[in-house]
């Protein structure tokens, strides 16, 4: 029987040589006349082990990594295709502690299947949720999602079921399902991994949403920084059309549903839902006033479900296994699992899907192994560029929407960026304003002007000019931005700024100011 050897085609794996490994492996297999086939998969999300390749054996997949092209002849000589012993052998993939300790629901298949094969997807339990949804009424589907407690994984944490109920109840000759795949937060890559590793899960989730609210048109907006995700997702959509899953009869028996893939053009603000809708309509991506909510007047003015990649991707599991099974994971009002991402200065960076409730410190130490540099952790930014900087003594915070809010932070999309003690927090605060200034859509004044004035003021602080007075100006400016910005970009930029000032005041106490005070 032909042996399957999995080599990730994931962007991150490719960034450290996975394509070259696949190329060399193909050459050497042909040269040795081995009965083996290379399958390009997504990544398991153990990035320090990439390129990590896996061999399918009777006892399950055996992993090797990190593999360099030059290792291939030695690996084959050591009996790679039978899972033979070699210094790079990591053992059965599922037994690798980093994976074994996770609770992978959304990412169960990612890295283990050919992402554009309907057969692979179906063989690993795919389309079960869609099949069940096809036998249910729209109201029953919405109730199931509501009962699961699923909250929007894009960052805001709004209950998905309630959003869907609003769209279901809205009158409209045409309704839309829009997937927000504009994953612009630094420190996050879960959406990208899923689109490159298990795109059909997302397609299935969107199709179920279509059934739930009576929408026949689906759209996905993928950022242009993710060319591989665009390519893989597009191929997966085409494969689903050929298999009759998308098209005139969704899942073969349902009403019509199809998905159009659109690529962004480098604008962080498009991650904001109304800005994304404007962009999909081919306009400048200016944030819209709310109300009206997109649920009532969304894409092209029609009722629209707009959710993040991970929200849609959680839905097939909820439908297949039932709302209760999903809701049994988690803590408080944060139900289910969160795929969080360990990034920045971290030894074992990657994707960890766990029930809500793990603490930040457990994530960083037990999974991440501390900093990559080996120096002490000084600051952790969770939730992207608009997330707060937490000091090391906040590592006991559980990964839970409310627990983060209570400490003036936010969980966002689950990106965890670790900094060691070489970080200059005044520079980080300055950057937060700079980023906001560059990415502001320009519609509202607090964000458009405030970000630039904020950057200038922090620069004065960094130069040691009237530090106390300028910091109080920043504080005042941040209050205005928080209260008066139209969307989260201007409204949340104060989070990283104020948290840096609050938790790391020593970095803002610049030398010339002390001289002046004497």
């Amino acid at each position, binding site marked *: 029987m032909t042996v399957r050897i999995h080599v990730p085609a994931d*962007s*991150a794996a*490719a*960034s*450290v040589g996975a394509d070259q490994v696949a190329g060399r492996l193909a050459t050497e297999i042909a040269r040795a006349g081995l009965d083996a086939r290379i399958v390009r998969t997504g990544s398991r999300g153990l*990035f*320090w082990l*990439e390129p990590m390749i896996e061999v399918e054996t009777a006892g399950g997949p055996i992993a090797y990594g990190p593999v360099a092209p030059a290792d291939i002849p030695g690996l084959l000589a050591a009996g790679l295709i039978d899972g033979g012993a070699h210094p790079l052998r990591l053992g059965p993939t599922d037994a690798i502690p980093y994976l074994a300790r996770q609770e992978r629901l959304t990412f169960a298949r990612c890295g283990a299947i050919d992402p554009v094969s309907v057969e692979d997807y179906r063989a690993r339990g795919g389309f079960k949720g869609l099949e069940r949804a096809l036998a249910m009424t729209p109201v029953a589907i919405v109730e199931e999602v509501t009962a699961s407690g699923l909250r929007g994984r894009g960052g805001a944490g709004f209950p998905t079921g309630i959003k869907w109920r609003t769209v279901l109840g809205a009158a409209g000759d045409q309704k839309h399902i829009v997937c927000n795949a504009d*994953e*612009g*937060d*630094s*420190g*996050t*890559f879960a959406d*990208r991994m899923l689109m490159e590793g298990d795109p059909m899960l997302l397609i299935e989730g969107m199709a179920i949403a279509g059934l739930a609210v009576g929408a026949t048109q689906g759209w996905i907006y993928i950022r*242009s*920084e*993710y*060319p*591989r*995700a665009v390519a893989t997702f597009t191929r997966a959509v085409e494969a689903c059309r050929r298999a009759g899953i998308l098209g005139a009869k969704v899942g073969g028996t349902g009403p019509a549903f199809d998905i159009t893939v*659109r*690529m*962004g*053009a*480098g*604008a*962080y603000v498009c991650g904001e839902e109304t800005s994304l809708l404007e*962009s999909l309509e*081919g*306009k*400048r*991506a200016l944030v819209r006033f709310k109300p009206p909510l997109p649920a009532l007047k969304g894409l092209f003015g029609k009722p629209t479900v707009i959710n993040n990649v991970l929200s849609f991707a959680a839905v097939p599991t909820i439908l297949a296994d039932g709302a209760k099974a999903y809701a049994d994971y988690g803590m408080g009002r944060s139900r289910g699992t969160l795929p969080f*991402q*360990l*990034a*920045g*200065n*971290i030894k074992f*960076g*990657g994707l960890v899907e766990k029930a809500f409730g793990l603490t930040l410190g457990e994530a960083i130490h037990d999974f991440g192994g501390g900093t*990559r*540099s080996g120096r002490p952790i000084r600051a952790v*930014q969770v939730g992207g*560029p608009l997330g707060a900087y937490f000091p090391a003594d906040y590592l006991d915070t559980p990964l839970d929407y409310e627990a983060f809010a209570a400490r003036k932070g936010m969980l966002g999309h689950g*990106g965890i*960026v*670790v*900094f*060691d003690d070489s*970080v200059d927090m005044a520079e*980080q605060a300055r*950057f937060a304003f700079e*980023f906001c200034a*560059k*990415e502001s*859509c320009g519609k509202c004044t607090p964000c458009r002007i405030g970000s630039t004035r904020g950057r200038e003021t922090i620069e004065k602080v960094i130069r040691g000019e009237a530090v106390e007075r300028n910091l109080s100006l920043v504080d005042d400016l941040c209050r205005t931005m928080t209260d008066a910005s139209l969307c989260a970009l201007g409204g949340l930029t104060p989070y990283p700024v104020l948290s840096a000032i609050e938790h790391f005041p020593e970095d803002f106490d610049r030398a010339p100011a002390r001289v002046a005070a004497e």
Partner: protein
Amino acid sequence: MLPILHELQETFGYVDRAALPLIADALNLSRAEVHGVVSFYHDFRSEPAGRTQVKICRGEACQAVGCRELVATAERRHGLTLGETSPAGDLTLEEVFCLGNCALGPAVQVDGELHGRVTPDVLDALIAMSRSRGHA
């Protein structure tokens, strides 16, 4: 309009001003509206880029592992600041905010290909490789 603009840039390397009235006409929009869209998005250039295009991630995750030093070294070695193209037209250095490679930073895209754990010397090697491909 975005698919049209992407297609133009893919084909010609930039979106020529001369194309704007044509797009406006085809989509029944004003020239100003088309200009508004083109100028809003970071991706669209109004002039050709250098033969080698380097985008260095300046997101926080890459900052945590030394992208500031990477940017400073690249700027110094090539005599360019981010956003500039060399006078000879052989190299463009740009910033980008997040390439989704946040566990393997600093991340850099060279001619559309993503690279991880990029040090200043690795970046020089990548640029040299791109140049030799271009001259071959």
